[in-house]
């Protein structure tokens, strides 16, 4: 039983990384109907920027914060320059743009930083020890990741529910025309959404690098699939769904791999196919996901 709980906790920690990236995807999807396939590669790129900062002497947590800001600004800039020209056109066009970004950023990360082996962060930002709670070992790193995720999610929630800006963001996603009629600059709201998503992705990237060293340019590819599966599972428009989906997938994947030792199906390397299967099953059984609202069915 303790083994089970332990794996659940570990799964929650990795799940919160997927949840963060899924949340980023949902934020952009809600406001534009576009799935940003480049979300993972954007995260990788910003994580490498963080590495560069630390490499030049900036402290880890300082670099962490600075990277979030850079990601935020970068996301806004991306939206205003590359995405804006095709705003208002068919969704598929913008999606293809994000694919282009996926390829471009992946290539750039490889080109600029090359595939050297790097540990990032060089020294553990979280203490390596673990707490014991009722016989279950909870690593301080996992706890740290979970805690920071919770803080971020709560902060976002507060932003969206209690501030004027958050209301404008929500309104722009729900009804862009009506938003314009009350004077909201919808274009900038979209840009802000991209900025927030990029910042969330940056956190996901930093956590991924901390949780599974070494730092490599392809590290976010699996995370992206898990996040997409999480978003689809939770319902593409539902932020809460993204979080629940992410945590669920984290826990399930962890449990599947753990219990694989009994069935010997070598499932550790089959995690991405499992996530793909999850997507397919959700599409077959309940396409709008757990918490999605709109009817996505069309003949």
């Amino acid at each position, binding site marked *: 039983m303790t083994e089970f709980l332990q794996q659940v906790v570990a799964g929650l920690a990795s799940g919160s990384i997927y949840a963060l990236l899924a949340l980023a995807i949902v934020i952009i999807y809600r406001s534009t109907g576009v799935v940003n396939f480049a979300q993972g590669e954007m995260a990788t790129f910003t994580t490498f920027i963080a590495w560069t900062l630390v490499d030049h002497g900036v402290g880890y947590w300082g670099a962490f914060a600075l990277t979030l800001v850079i990601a935020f600004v970068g996301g806004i800039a991306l939206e205003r320059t590359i995405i804006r*020209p095709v705003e208002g056109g068919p969704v598929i066009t913008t*999606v*293809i743009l994000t*694919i*282009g970004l996926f*390829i*471009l950023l992946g290539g750039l990360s490889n080109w600029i930083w090359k595939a050297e082996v790097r540990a990032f962060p060089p020294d553990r930002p979280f203490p390596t020890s673990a707490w014991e709670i009722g016989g279950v070992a909870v690593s301080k790193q996992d706890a740290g990741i979970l805690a920071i995720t919770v803080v971020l999610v709560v902060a976002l929630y507060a932003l969206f529910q209690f501030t004027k800006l958050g209301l404008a963001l929500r309104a722009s996603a729900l009804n862009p025309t009506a938003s314009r009629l009350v004077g909201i600059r919808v274009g900038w709201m979209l840009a802000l959404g991209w900025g927030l998503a990029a910042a969330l992705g940056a956190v996901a990237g930093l956590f991924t690098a901390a949780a599974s060293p070494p730092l490599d340019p392809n590290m976010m590819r699996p995370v992206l699939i898990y996040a*997409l599966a999480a978003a689809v599972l939770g319902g593409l428009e539902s932020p809460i769904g993204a979080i629940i989906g992410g945590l669920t997938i984290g826990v399930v994947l962890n449990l599947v791999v753990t219990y694989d030792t009994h069935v010997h199906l070598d499932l550790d390397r089959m995690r991405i196919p499992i996530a793909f299967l999850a997507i*397919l099953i959700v599409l077959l059984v309940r396409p709008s996901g757990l918490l999605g609202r709109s009817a996505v069915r*069309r003949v």
Partner: protein
Amino acid sequence: MSRLATVRAVVTILALAAGIVLMYFAPHSDRIGYIKGSQLGVYFIAILGLNIVTGYTGQISLGHGAFMAIGGYTTAILVSEHGVRDLWTIPIAALVAGAFGFVVGVPALRLSGLYLALATFGLALAMPAILSWDKLDAVTKGGHEIQLFNSPHLIGKGFEDVHFLGRTLPFNHAVYYLTWGIALVLLVVAWLILRGAPGRAFRAVRDSELAATSSGVHVATYKALAFAISAAYAGIAGSLFVIALAFADPQSFPATLSLTLLVGAAVAGLGSLWGVLAGAAFVQFLPDFAVHISKAQGVPDTVYGAALILIVLLLPTGVAGGLRRAVSPLTTRLYTRSQSQ
């Protein structure tokens, strides 16, 4: 037939004839050669498949590289483990890939929006792991290379001369003509589906959603069928690829192959047939040019990505659209002249 249609038909036939002539002479140039020419044909078929999906359903597939892998591995396993003659494996590869395409297409295509893109993206990223899974040993050799070189069931055993219709061809030439012969046939089929008379019924189902559903026909099934056909195309491409290489391994079908194909389709003009050659050529020869910028890893991808972004922003209808714009003043002039006569 109206004057415009006549003009169009003549232009098409001339272009096809020019294409056939080009096909015959091209490999003699140093740049291209028979091996690269075959590879070009492989990309041509795969991108053709991609454009069938987009042309028929309006959605994009991000997983055609995976269908290539399925087709390629079908051929590889059948030839090496089961002694099937390589040419016979091509239609089998098409069927297998098509079947998988149908399975993925059915749930995704009855939904609006991006679900096909999502599902196929997942498939593309999952494929390398699936190919390396040792539980699937029987069909993938668990990620180990499947060698076809020297196999008696492969054309020319992968290196010998081939005897055909009384002539002797080097292996490379044989593969080249095989590939492009099939490519031409598939091009005609694609045209029939998307624009030709036999495809009209097929397209009528797609267009008259209301009428179709009220008479109990599932539009989504037809769309999935179109997707299956396009997956079959990719399967054939993969099969030919493996035949040309005389081996198969997971590294030949990386996750990014699907995305590279999409770049080719975008260069061609999504859903078009005319620009596919340009798209295939772009994908095929870009790495050679990218090396001039820098030999570092990641450079080709950077250029692919930048190219895709620029195309979407500046030339969204791709080469086909550009061609159409260039040619239309001519056809319009001929058309209006025939009107005033």
